[in-house]
């Protein structure tokens, strides 16, 4: 699969000479030319705020800020504002970080342990409108030990905690005196990161300049502009006219740049999956036989090829097939015959109209997708037509989230999730029965004691082997009773001017564009010689 794609890309590169790129000078101004020291990127949406206290950059790569830890290209944790990975003591309940010395905020003030404590305490404060606070709920106490050490005490041992400490650190002397919800820090942030914000014209663009005193060394890319262009076609057009150097694009538009020899396409794999929630409370979707039949009836390969233009991978569970935690051997091909046998055995008999029924109840349910999302719409329609072949009638409807939310208990939803960093982050909120129907957590109200046990072990065990075994068990349990029909993992595509050496992409979460893409580490880019 991948090799075929690489070969296809190579062939496209070889044909590059055949197509003349439109090289009209875009409105790039005198410095918008092909200099490797500046880059202009088009992204579909902008952050609501640039304050980490409200959730900006909580998964890393925030450009303006650094966390205690960061992630490298392979998504491994590495020290950032901390000198080293944390010291874990007290059976996994105490994490001690030693700060790097000599780090200063871009306004010249030194970073101290108090800044770290202030950041975490403000995020955890009830009055702060941070939407992701529950990710740090495990923290019982955070305190400074002198200027150079920060100690976190947790409620319970939590193996994945270190991965949460990529949260950006803010300066107390700037953000401390104002309301975190509406203060000026939301639009005029100050951090220790490789870039400094120079302007934010909301809805239009954000501009950054390199921080010459960055503790990691001054970036070679001196100027970074993020242009906010919601419309995919407009973004592609402005990229073609030279107004932009790079952009995130859907697969069909990214393909139009194949013949461009001064641009490169980057494909980032992701944890971003599309799945159908099968509510446990509904007599049809809550029936294990129906769930297993649907899981076997869907043609995942066809969805990747037809809906995603090949820019994705079939998903056999919440974790992608190339994830180190993926349970080997759970891939399963489409098998309509087996789906039929499972339904027959469970008493779902074919009816006159081709829809199976059991005890006079037709195998029928409604599947909602959020209106306006074409990718989800296509998935929903493909799912319904696959299910029909197995004798299950899925009625597809579109609605806004305001309409969908009250119905999540009984009707299926074409949902999208995916968190990077640790299997616990995505799986616990998706599957644990204690979170059934808790806001948007565990939307299917999945309830499986074996899975709950595996989740708890994976969360608390300090031993990597024990965690691995737990997540392996969990994925196999999901095959036996799939409360979600996971369909595809979506690749994210980026097209970027070819002026730098050896760019990489990380494995990306559900959210993407601003912090991910090949510019996840723009501060490390090296101009082509």
């Amino acid at each position, binding site marked *: 699969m991948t090799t075929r794609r690489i070969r296809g890309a190579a062939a496209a590169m070889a044909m590059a000479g055949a197509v003349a790129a439109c090289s009209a000078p*875009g*409105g790039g101004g005198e410095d918008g030319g092909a200099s490797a020291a500046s880059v202009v990127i088009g992204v579909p949406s902008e952050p609501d705020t640039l304050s980490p206290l409200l959730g900006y950059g909580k998964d890393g790569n925030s450009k303006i800020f650094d966390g205690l830890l960061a992630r490298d290209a392979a998504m491994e944790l590495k020290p950032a504002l901390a000198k080293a990975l944390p010291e874990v003591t007290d059976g996994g309940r105490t994490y001690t970080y030693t700060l790097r010395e000599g780090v200063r905020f871009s306004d010249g003030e030194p970073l101290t342990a108090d800044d770290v404590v202030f950041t975490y305490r403000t995020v955890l404060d009830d009055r702060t*409108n941070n*939407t992701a606070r529950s990710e740090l709920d495990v923290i019982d106490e955070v305190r400074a030990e002198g200027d150079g050490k920060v100690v976190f005490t947790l409620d319970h041992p939590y193996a994945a905690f270190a991965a949460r400490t990529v949260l950006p650190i803010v300066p107390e002397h700037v953000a401390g005196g104002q309301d975190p919800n509406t203060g000026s820090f939301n639009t005029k942030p100050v951090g220790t990161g490789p870039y400094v914000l120079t302007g934010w014209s*909301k809805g*239009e663009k954000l501009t950054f*300049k390199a921080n010459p005193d960055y503790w990691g060394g001054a970036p070679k890319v001196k100027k970074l502009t993020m242009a*906010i262009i919601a419309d995919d076609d*407009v973004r592609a057009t*402005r990229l073609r006219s030279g107004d932009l150097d790079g952009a995130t694009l859907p697969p069909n538009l990214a393909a139009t740049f194949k013949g461009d020899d001064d641009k490169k396409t980057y494909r980032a794999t992701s944890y971003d999956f599309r799945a159908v929630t099968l509510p446990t409370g509904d007599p049809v979707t809550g029936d294990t036989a129906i769930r297993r039949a649907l899981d076997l009836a869907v043609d995942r390969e066809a969805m990747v090829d037809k809906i995603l233009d090949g820019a994705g991978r079939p998903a056999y569970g919440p974790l992608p097939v190339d994830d180190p935690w993926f349970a080997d051997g759970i891939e399963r091909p489409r098998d309509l015959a087996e789906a039929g046998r499972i339904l027959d055995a469970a008493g779902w008999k074919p009816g006159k109209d081709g829809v199976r029924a059991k005890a006079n109840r037709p195998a029928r349910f409604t599947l909602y997708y959020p209106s306006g999302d074409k990718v989800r719409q296509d998935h929903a329609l493909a799912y319904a037509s696959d299910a029909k072949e197995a004798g299950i009638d899925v009625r597809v409807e579109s609605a806004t989230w305001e309409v969908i939310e009250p119905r999540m208990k009984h009707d299926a939803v074409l949902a999208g999730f995916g968190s990077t960093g640790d299997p616990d982050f995505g799986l616990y909120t998706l599957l644990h029965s204690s979170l059934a129907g808790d806001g948007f957590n565990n939307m299917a109200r999945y309830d499986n004691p074996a899975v709950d046990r595996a989740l708890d072990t994976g969360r608390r065990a300090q031993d990597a082997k024990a965690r691995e075994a737990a997540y392996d068990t969990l994925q196999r349990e999901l095959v036996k009773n799939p409360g979600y029909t996971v369909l595809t993992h979506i690749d994210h595509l980026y097209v970027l001017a070819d002026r730098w050496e050896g760019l990489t992409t990380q494995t990306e979460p559900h959210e993407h564009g601003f912090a991910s893409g090949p510019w996840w580490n723009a501060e490390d880019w090296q101009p082509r010689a």
Partner: protein
Amino acid sequence: MARLTARRALFAVPVLLVVTFGVFAVAAASPFDPVKAYAGTAALGADQETLDRLRDNLGVDRPFAVRWWDWLTSALGGDFGRSTVMRQPVAEVIGERLVWSTLLCAVAFAAAVLLGTLLGVLAARRPGSLLDRTVTSLAYSLEAAPVFWIALLAIWLFALNLDVLPAGGLTDTGSDHVTAGQVVSHLVLPAGVLAVSQLPWFILYVRQGVGDALAEDPVRGARARGLAERTVLLGHALRSGLLPVLTLIGSRVPELITGALLVETVFSWPGIAAATVEAATAVDFPLLAALTTLATAAVLAGNLLADLLYGLIDPRVKLNEM
């Protein structure tokens, strides 16, 4: 004149009160959930506790009449509250954006009035001529064309095919300084489109007014005395022919504001339009109320201006009787 202005200002007070109250009532009745709008995509992964806490912090469950009263009393004290969706004080949101919207509207409006008058007069000079027929049919077709469609057409033609004008934004994407030259080049398309969308009204009104005036006795008398065509046109016909246009100026303001909303959205112009749309869908009471107040005030001011001009120019109208 001063009395008229003062009377109108007094009358504006209850209007503004009713309008802002209406905004709060409609927003409260809308199906949008302010908490979800606030949290954005993060809400789709949030737990109930977080959603409840936000609901509590944002105070969205308080009765809208109470919230309106709170907003009103602090607004009278000069504090317009804080915008939840923009994470900024409302005054700051408006301060950052109003200048660009005003610039856009003023340029477009001036262009529409001047061009409309010119074309209208040309069409009226020879009713039924080729020029008249062309201008009139153009005006009617523009009248029917939705402004966002014209905007997209203009982008397609001038930005994509001819590549002579930028497709959007306030300045070039790669620059982080706002310079006059850049703003001017970026202003041409949005202001042009907005002007074109307002044009038909002025053309048709002027044509009608001037056409009627040309047929009036004083004008025919002037022509009979052998006065130059220019004098006749400018001195006699235009003066009475333009009177209807003055009334039009006031009544076009609301239309101009809605037009600006669409144009700003299409051209990513960083004015208050984008903020208005966001405020409305996010049920951001303070911002929405402030913006509505602004829009209402603009409409009232436009009407007042039209009446004042009318009183000044038309000798038959006495201001102190209005």
